[in-house]
């Protein structure tokens, strides 16, 4: 069975997109071959990629589809043959089936006798099918951002397609992708191999032939080569190791075809700069790996992954060049650090008046004043609860006061991604105390849902105050997010609030945080709904609770974030029991009945007003007996147990609905029934609104 190779030659594909596209190409080819019955019984599919190519090799493809026989059914026998003579209908059918009339046969079916004919279909060759079908699959690959390059804009792809190799064993499959006819010539490493075509003798020899042209097409192999080379280069420094950084490894794997590594040095004096700054420059700006000593402290070296292999002279030149770039960046950073120290954070508060937060609202000085007010209110709430939370209010307020001052520093202007962090480092360097420094440092965490919340209570409170103030103020001037538009990242801010409340020990609720902002009226309601929506997102998308569980839990209260989580957990467990599912169904029924009753203008009365049917009385008794027990458990937040208790209502509820006509023609009886079920619904919906639970 032949082997099939497809290689799409491209201009450098963005590193972040390669892995996904390689996998998608493999999947599409596999699906195509399966769909077209071209996959051999023991076929093996392997994908490859480098910045300049995506490839797939399938060993064991069928040369052609198997021939098939198929019975085609035609008109009824009586219509096709009159007195044994074929009619026009028979001839038309024979023509359609591509068979002589003599080949028509009588087929008896449950519906009667029909004309049939066995049609043999010859399988189509792999060459022909791949040539027509594969280009569509390739051009359908998803890219986060793609482009036109040919005049007339016939197709879009991530980058221009420059060559295509498509071979079944040694033969070219004559397909065309984006105007490029496939051949058997690939290309090698731009510099190490040059422009000469790399002609493949057969599909199977792909990886080895390319290796000869200084391209390692296997991603896992390049990853291995890079890790080994990083290890080896680091060994030249006694006791050192390179700082593990998996995302960075993946990036350089997809930036190279023939990776090697050099170790470079920088002047140890730069180590006086904070590690955060050094690592940001090395990793984010230069894609270098940091090197650390035996105590995990940064060492004055870096590792650069090259996409070439050169001699000693070339290595010296490359090392020199990279060192020079890094030194210039460090030098800048140190210059900025030194300049910034001339004006301590405390002296920068005033200059925040010249930094606009939002034109309609005011400067960052105004923002700071506002944050101080909100943080003070939050501190008061925490203290009022009399909690055992340990925090230093003076340190908190100092941190809030200085939190935004790093926006005026040169270092933050240069490394905007380090705002907050720089402020924290400066606060520490300026002797403002660890609590103040840490709170400033952590103010923007969590930056994402994967990030941790601040470890310090002051940092948590500063983060809450800053975010709620921004949200409330922005909503106040009509800048609430709409649809996909959220230019001020208010959703992220609100997500941060929810996450801090969920993952800290702060005795605060969403309502408490919102209350501290001081907003009132319609704006308060709007923001409250927005926060609730973010809590929904957090429970469902971050914590992974089922949507109906989240709906049920939030319907019973969406203020206390950790409490909502506890209820959601208990409900997720409880819903698995059959009794509980029945209760959920019953509650939904109760809700529907009450809605109908309301629509019809039926009033609920007191259950005690009439003599109830035994089943109704039993339900009333069971509910009355259960209610105080559930209330106690709820109070203790023993939600699992409370839900288990509620599930014990099932027999009484079932019997009630089985035997009792709720909407009794007698108005008093009906009123009593409605009063009874309304009481049950209200009495046991405090943990979650079970009627929201989707039952099978």
């Amino acid at each position, binding site marked *: 069975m032949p082997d099939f190779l497809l290689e799409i030659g491209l201009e450098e594909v963005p590193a972040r997109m390669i892995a996904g596209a390689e996998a998608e190409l493999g999947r599409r080819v596999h699906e195509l071959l399966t769909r077209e019955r071209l996959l051999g019984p023991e076929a093996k599919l392997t994908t490859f990629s480098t910045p300049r190519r995506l490839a797939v090799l399938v060993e064991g493809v069928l040369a052609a589809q198997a021939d098939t026989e198929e019975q085609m059914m035609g008109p009824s026998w009586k219509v096709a043959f009159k007195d044994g003579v074929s009619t026009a209908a028979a001839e038309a059918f024979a023509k359609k089936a591509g068979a002589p009339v003599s080949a028509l046969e009588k087929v008896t079916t449950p519906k009667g006798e029909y004309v049939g004919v066995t049609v043999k279909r010859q399988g189509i060759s792999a060459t022909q099918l791949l040539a027509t079908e594969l280009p569509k699959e390739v051009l359908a690959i998803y890219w986060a951002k793609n482009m036109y390059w040919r005049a007339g804009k016939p197709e879009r792809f991530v980058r221009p397609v420059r060559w295509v190799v498509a071979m079944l064993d040694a033969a070219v499959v004559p397909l065309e992708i984006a105007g490029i006819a496939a051949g058997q010539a690939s290309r090698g490493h731009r510099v190490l191999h040059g422009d000469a075509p790399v002609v493949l003798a057969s599909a199977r020899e792909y990886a080895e032939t390319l290796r000869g042209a200084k391209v390692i097409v296997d991603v896992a192999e390049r990853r291995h080569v890079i890790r080994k080379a990083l290890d080896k280069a680091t060994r030249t420094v006694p006791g050192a190791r390179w700082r593990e950084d998996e995302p960075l490894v993946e990036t350089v794997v997809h930036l190279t075809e023939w990776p090697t590594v050099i170790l470079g040095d920088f002047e140890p004096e730069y180590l006086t700069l904070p590690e955060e700054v050094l690592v940001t420059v090395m990793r984010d700006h230069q894609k270098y790996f940091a090197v650390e000593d035996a105590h995990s402290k940064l060492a004055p070296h870096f590792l650069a992954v090259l*996409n070439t292999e050169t001699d000693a002279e070339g290595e010296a030149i*490359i*090392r*020199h060049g990279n060192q020079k770039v890094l030194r210039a960046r460090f030098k800048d950073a140190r210059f900025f650090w030194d300049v910034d120290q001339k004006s301590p954070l405390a002296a920068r508060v005033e200059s925040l008046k010249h930094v606009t937060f939002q034109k309609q609202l005011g400067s960052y000085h105004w923002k700071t004043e506002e944050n101080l007010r909100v943080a003070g209110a939050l501190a008061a709430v925490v203290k009022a609860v009399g909690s055992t939370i340990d925090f230093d209010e003076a340190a908190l307020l100092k941190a809030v006061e200085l939190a935004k001052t790093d926006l005026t520093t040169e270092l933050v202007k240069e490394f905007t991604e380090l705002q907050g962090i720089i402020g924290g480092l400066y606060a520490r360097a300026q002797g403002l105390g660890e609590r103040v420094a840490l709170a400033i440092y952590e103010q923007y965490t969590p930056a994402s849902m994967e990030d941790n919340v601040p470890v310090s209570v002051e940092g948590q409170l500063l983060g809450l105050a800053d975010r709620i103030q921004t949200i409330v103020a922005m909503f106040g001037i009509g800048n609430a997010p709409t649809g996909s538009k959220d230019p001020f990242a208010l959703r992220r801010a609100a997500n941060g609030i929810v996450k801090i409340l969920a993952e800290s020990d702060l005795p605060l609720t969403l309502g408490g945080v919102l209350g501290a902002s001081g907003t009132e009226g319609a704006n308060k309601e709007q923001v409250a709904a927005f926060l609730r929506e973010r809590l929904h997102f957090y429970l469902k998308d971050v914590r992974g609770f089922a949507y109906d569980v989240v709906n049920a839990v939030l319907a019973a209260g969406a203020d206390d974030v950790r409490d909502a989580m506890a209820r959601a957990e208990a409900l997720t467990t409880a819903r698995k029991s059959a009794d509980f599912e029945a209760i959920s169904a019953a509650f939904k029924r109760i809700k529907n009945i009450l809605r109908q009753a309301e629509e019809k203008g039926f009033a609920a009365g007191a259950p005690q007003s009439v003599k109830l049917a035994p089943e109704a009385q039993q339900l009333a008794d069971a509910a009355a007996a259960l209610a105080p027990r559930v209330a106690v458990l709820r109070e203790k937040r023993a939600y699992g147990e409370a839900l288990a208790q509620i599930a014990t209502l099932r027999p009484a509820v079932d019997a009630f609905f089985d035997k009792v006509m709720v909407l009794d023609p007698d108005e008093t009886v009906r009123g009593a029934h409605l009063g009874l079920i309304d009481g049950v619904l209200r009495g046991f919906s405090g943990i979650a609104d079970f009627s929201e639970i989707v039952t099978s």
Partner: protein
Amino acid sequence: MSSTQVASSVKPTALTFQELLFRLQAFWAERGCVLQQPYDVEVGAGTMAPETFLRVLGPKPYKVGYAQPSRRPADGRYGENPNRLFRHTQFQLILKPPPVNVQELYLQSLEAIGIDLSKHDLKFEEDNWEWPAGGAWGVGWQVMLDGLEITQFTYFQQCGGMDLDPICAELTYGMERIAAFLQDVDSIYDIVWARDPETGELVTYGDVRLAEELQFSVYNFEVANIDNLWEHFNRYEAEAKDLLEKADALLASETATAAEKRRFPLLAVYELALKCSNLFNVLDARGAISVTERVGVIGRIRALAVGVAKAIAQQQAVS
């Protein structure tokens, strides 16, 4: 130390700043490019010069190269920072449509200015470019040579808010960076600009440009008259808007002749828009534009730039 050996081995053979430009210009001229002179109105980037911004519109093929001084007032550092400039030089190249071997040509151009690729590490790293005020964007790379970004390579996709067809390749060589790298100097001001072939006397980048960097930093950061700048901005904008309205009416007119349409001075309107863009940059450096105001002012410049690009595309199509 290996580094000093390299430094001494590189420096004597390295090209001067002006030789670099000669070589690049010669290289691309030999490949059929028109060599243009820099545009004589202030621009923030080579892209904004009409030879790029307006030539990429429409179907007509064009190949052009020019060394464009580009002003970024906020980047000025009084001539004190060795790596930063108020005004730097971009060698800007437009290839419309891009040849299929455009990357190979680019690599050859590096060889032409003395970069032996077998002794360097070169990577094309994703870097997409956009100029929102011009309704222009493209996808491409920053070309990294031994860790230094030396060129921005962009496949233009849209300009003036219009899809381009054919698209073009835009190569922007950062001349000061390349020169400092090849000459292995630590400061831009130490770049050798020219070397007298008879006396061997050197003229440095600092000799040529330091005073300009210092004085324009003073002007842009300290003394530019904010009220005047706004007034200039408003006047240029008003004239541009007025002309644009007339242009739109004329181009839509069924009675106006082709000759009347072709002579309408849209190229001058584009200059007025460039004036506004530069004034905005000076105001910004002067600290006179708040974060929110910024969005609004950029919107005003965009209205002019996009408006004029659309009008010019229509004018080009007048038969």
